[in-house]
């Protein structure tokens, strides 16, 4: 059988080297721009921060010193470990429940009519106001903290998954139908992979909310973990120490985001290849 397709003799995608050449003058690497941005921001903070009263603000070198002291004394490590447990429990549970829930709501109109309302409302729920009630139900310990993280992070995951399902081309679902696939198989083999980019976006959005939820929980229930360091140092007017857990949490969120991106690249490599930015 002859192969007359023109594209068959073309390379499927331009080589990386060719793309660089096509971009014209050599560009600085991506990480260099990020690091440069960070240096400038830290320098500005250092210059202006060091001129104000250390109660009202702090600056990078003072925070670094506080970071060192907290690390050497072992307090930071212990607090981080204490915080991470309910954080991970709540966050992973939010993924485990939120994704299937979003798939079902997006796929079946009965589920959407019955449950969509609660998900939309739940996303806007002022959770802080409900923490005292949750404490009555679940106590002051691990359970209530995990629950607060779960409740804060599940809704962006569910909503994104739900929207993703409604964006799956009808024609792909029909492929499943044409081969007599049962509904569950269509959900698992077609809807789920087609929705993966949306799911990953929801999981990323939820990282930020989960971090905030964790700190809220540590403030309002048993004061513990990183939240305890923030409260205690704020009460002692030790502003530099107070910034340490805040920065640790932000770095944690960046790290998780990166990790999720790497996972996405592994489980959905086709997505990056199809959608790829022309300016990666």
């Amino acid at each position: 059988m002859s192969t007359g397709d023109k594209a068959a003799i073309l390379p499927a995608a331009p080589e990386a080297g060719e793309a660089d050449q096509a971009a014209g003058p050599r560009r600085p690497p991506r990480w260099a721009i990020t690091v440069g941005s960070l240096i400038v921001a830290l320098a500005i903070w250092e210059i202006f921060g060091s001129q104000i009263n250390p109660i009202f603000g702090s600056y990078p070198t003072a925070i670094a010193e506080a970071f060192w002291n907290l690390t050497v004394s072992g307090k930071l490590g212990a607090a981080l470990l204490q915080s991470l447990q309910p954080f991970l429990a709540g966050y992973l549970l939010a993924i485990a429940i939120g994704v299937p829930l979003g798939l079902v709501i997006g796929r079946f109109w009965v589920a959407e009519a019955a449950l969509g309302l609660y998900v939309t409302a739940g996303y806007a729920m002022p959770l802080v106001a409900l923490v005292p009630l949750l404490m009555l139900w679940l106590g002051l310990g691990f359970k209530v903290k995990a629950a607060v993280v779960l409740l804060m992070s599940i809704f962006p995951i569910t909503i994104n998954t739900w929207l993703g399902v409604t964006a799956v081309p009808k024609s792909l679902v029909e492929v499943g139908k044409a081969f007599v696939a049962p509904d569950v198989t269509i959900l698992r083999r077609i809807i789920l992979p087609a929705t993966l980019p949306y799911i990953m976006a929801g999981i990323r959005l939820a990282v930020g909310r989960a971090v905030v939820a964790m700190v809220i929980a540590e403030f309002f229930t048993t004061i513990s973990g990183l939240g305890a360091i923030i409260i205690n140092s704020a009460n002692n007017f030790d502003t530099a120490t107070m910034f340490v857990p805040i920065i640790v949490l932000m770095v944690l969120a960046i790290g998780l985001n990166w990790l999720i991106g790497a996972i996405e690249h592994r489980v959905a490599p086709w997505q990056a290849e199809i959608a790829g930015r022309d300016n990666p």
Partner: protein
Amino acid sequence: MGDVSLIDVSKRFTLQIDGQVHRVQALDRVSFSVRDGEIVVLIGPSGCGKTTALRIAMGLDRASAGRVTVDGREVKACGYDRGMVFQHAELLPWLTALENVMFGLEMKGVRGPELRATAQQYLDLVGLKESASRRPHQLSGGMKQRVGIARALAIDPKVLLMDEPFGALDAQTRETMQAELLDIHARTKKTILFVTHDLDEAVLLADRIVVMRTGRIEEIFDVPLPRPRGDLGVIRGLPAFAETRYRIWRALHGERAEMVH
């Protein structure tokens, strides 16, 4: 065996345009049959109902009235006796070419070493032996549609239903695909119901051509060209090709053959 019959098939639906409800009669008592091993082409302008008729035959849409039978058994839903080739191939983008062909087989319940072997065999049949591990975005339009054809053929249906499968391809690729489809047909002897709006394609492929307009069958033509058709360039040069093409052109433009002298 692979006889397909549409018997008095009608399809009505309502459309809302600017708040007004429009009743659309997509198909009005359409009857025709495709005999075992035959290629029947449905042709007509956009909106004439040809794709709707094909989708009803597949079981993707339900008829408002009438019925479809395959070998005498009424079609209620999709089934493995019919294989669908979609207009834009509709490969699953996260699967390789081979896995896309395997998908249909897995749905049919094929397991074990037979699964991969059968899928590979059908990829070979459509000339994609070397491209089994490519993902759809690494395939050209023609190659994608070959995978689509392999996926439909792999479940060994009695009938192949093809919805303008070459409509989005460039002219040269389209000609190659037409020749290859005839080659596959000669080897597999499948019954094929093929939808197109391309007159040349219809005459080159079909044993019979069903001309449709506004949901009705206008006329059904026999194509008096020999099989195997071999070089399609030669076929295009035959007087019978030109004559058939002209008769169908007239029917498409609403002029009955008997009105012309």
